[in-house]
């Protein structure tokens, strides 16, 4: 039964999303905008993996994205790796950061969120430190003109989105996903169900780190020129969180809905006044956590419509 459900979710959610994301550039000329949609679809699902399935709200989620971007860039600049191999370095950087930050999982609620935010700021400070200019180019930013390949990197971003969606579909339809939800609900009872609480949480944490690191790496590749404050901007964390929360976490479709609606609105009217949107979205996060913790899709559930 779980398997047929997973197949249904793959056929009716993953494939259409990937088809649209993959084919839209042929019909619509603003590829950068589409690329940003793909990035946020991936990041929102990454937040979903962590917050939806473990209850940890990663306000410093951008840290993984940023070290992914730098892992990719350093591998290209210093090791002269081809871009696809350099994505491996992006993944590695994010997973290593995840490993270093694993002790944060001992903190709960707001303490975790704040510590995670501080950690991402610390990574930004390290990377943009002028003393490291030889390695990271410090505050002067990265230029990877040699590997610039917008079409290919766009395609790879879509592939990473597909992998991410596949991961969330797996979590929604597997015993491992069930175990994660059990730990999120009550870690003591979960342990007495035989679940290794620490290991289970750490796995979800690393999965969400990996997703952000990979898409961060492909972001560096796609834009090719960026500053440290670009890829460590708190806006990435805030947007990814608000999109995931708005649609509804621990679902497959919720974060997709959140990105399409809120990032759509942002692009339609917000670009000229981005500072207001940061404010509005910040307030929206609080409102959602307090009043609609399970997002818009939970309203559908209340009306008896089961949304995957």
């Amino acid at each position, binding site marked *: 039964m779980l398997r047929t459900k997973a197949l249904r979710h793959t056929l009716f959610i993953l494939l259409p999303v990937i088809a649209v994301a993959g084919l839209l550039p042929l019909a619509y000329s603003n590829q950068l905008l589409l690329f940003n949609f793909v990035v946020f679809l991936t990041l929102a699902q990454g937040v979903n993996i962590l917050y939806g399935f473990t209850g940890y709200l990663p306000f410093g989620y951008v840290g993984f994205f940023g070290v992914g971007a730098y892992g990719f860039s350093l591998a290209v600049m210093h090791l002269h790796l081809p871009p696809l191999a350099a994505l491996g370095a992006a993944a590695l950087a994010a997973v290593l950061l995840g490993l270093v930050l694993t002790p944060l999982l001992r903190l709960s609620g707001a303490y975790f969120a704040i510590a995670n935010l501080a950690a991402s700021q610390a990574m930004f400070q390290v990377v943009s430190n002028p003393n490291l200019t030889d390695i990271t180019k410090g505050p002067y930013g990265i230029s990877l003109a040699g590997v610039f390949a917008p079409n290919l990197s766009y395609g790879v971003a879509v592939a990473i989105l597909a992998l991410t969606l596949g991961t969330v579909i797996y979590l929604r339809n597997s*015993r491992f996903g069930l*175990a994660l*939800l059990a730990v999120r609900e009550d870690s*003591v*009872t979960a342990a007495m*169900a*035989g*679940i290794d609480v620490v290991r289970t949480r750490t796995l979800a944490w690393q999965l969400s780190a990996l997703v952000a690191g990979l898409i961060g790496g492909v972001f560096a590749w796609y834009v090719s020129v960026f500053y440290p404050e670009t890829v460590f901007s708190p806006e990435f964390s805030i947007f990814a969180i608000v999109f995931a929360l708005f649609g509804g976490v621990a679902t497959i479709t919720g974060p997709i809905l959140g990105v399409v609606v809120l990032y759509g609105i942002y692009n339609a009217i917000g670009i000229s006044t981005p500072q207001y949107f940061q404010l509005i979205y910040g307030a929206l996060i609080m409102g959602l956590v307090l009043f609609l913790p399970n997002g818009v899709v939970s309203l559908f559930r209340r009306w008896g419509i089961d949304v995957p």
Partner: protein
Amino acid sequence: MSPDLAKPLLQIDRLVKRFGGFVALDGVSFHVMPGEILGLVGPNGSGKTTCINVISGLYKPNGGEVRFQGRSVGGLASHRLVHLGINRTFQVPKPFLPLTVRENVEVAAAYGRPAEGPSDIEAILASVELDGLGNKTAAELNSVQQKMLDLARALATGPRLLCVDELAAGLNPVELDRVAIRLRDLARGGMALLVVEHLMGFIDQVTDRVIVLNAGREIFEGVLAEAVRDPQVVEVFLGAAHVG
């Protein structure tokens, strides 16, 4: 004591548990045989739940030993104890509320017994009278049903030792009878049970033997009929009654 051929499944030896300066368990010793139901009674705050918490790995002991099947297991992580065959119910159960009743049991069956085959989830649900409620979420259950779900969760892991913490509280007489029969059935199948309970009628009905705890020390070991004639036990229970 009569020489038993079988070895104890659980052997607690001079167990100590402190919370800061407060001594909740002050050198408690007892054992449980396979197929035996041992009652653990005592006034509020005497350390009954703490004892189960240490046995099930929620707390590390500060002294003494917990032996399970001859092996020292004190301080092991809960999930590892579950895999060895120890489980418990909670005085205040906290099931996985958004999950369905079936999922609650399924996850325990999947993670609680890696060595053995899958347990029959429908049969377990039926045995605690939750059949027909499998597709409801745990949040929709009343408190008695949540207690039964907690028992089902524990049973799904195939325990050899089951600690039951005030399962009977809040049950009506009919439900009490059913649960008593259910626990006796489990023991007849070879499972060892440690039953914490305030309802003496229930204790009388299900246990083979009781331990009486007071302020973290055991003050009596034997059958309930003798316990109620023991002056120290009577004193403790009357004293407790005076206070509250």
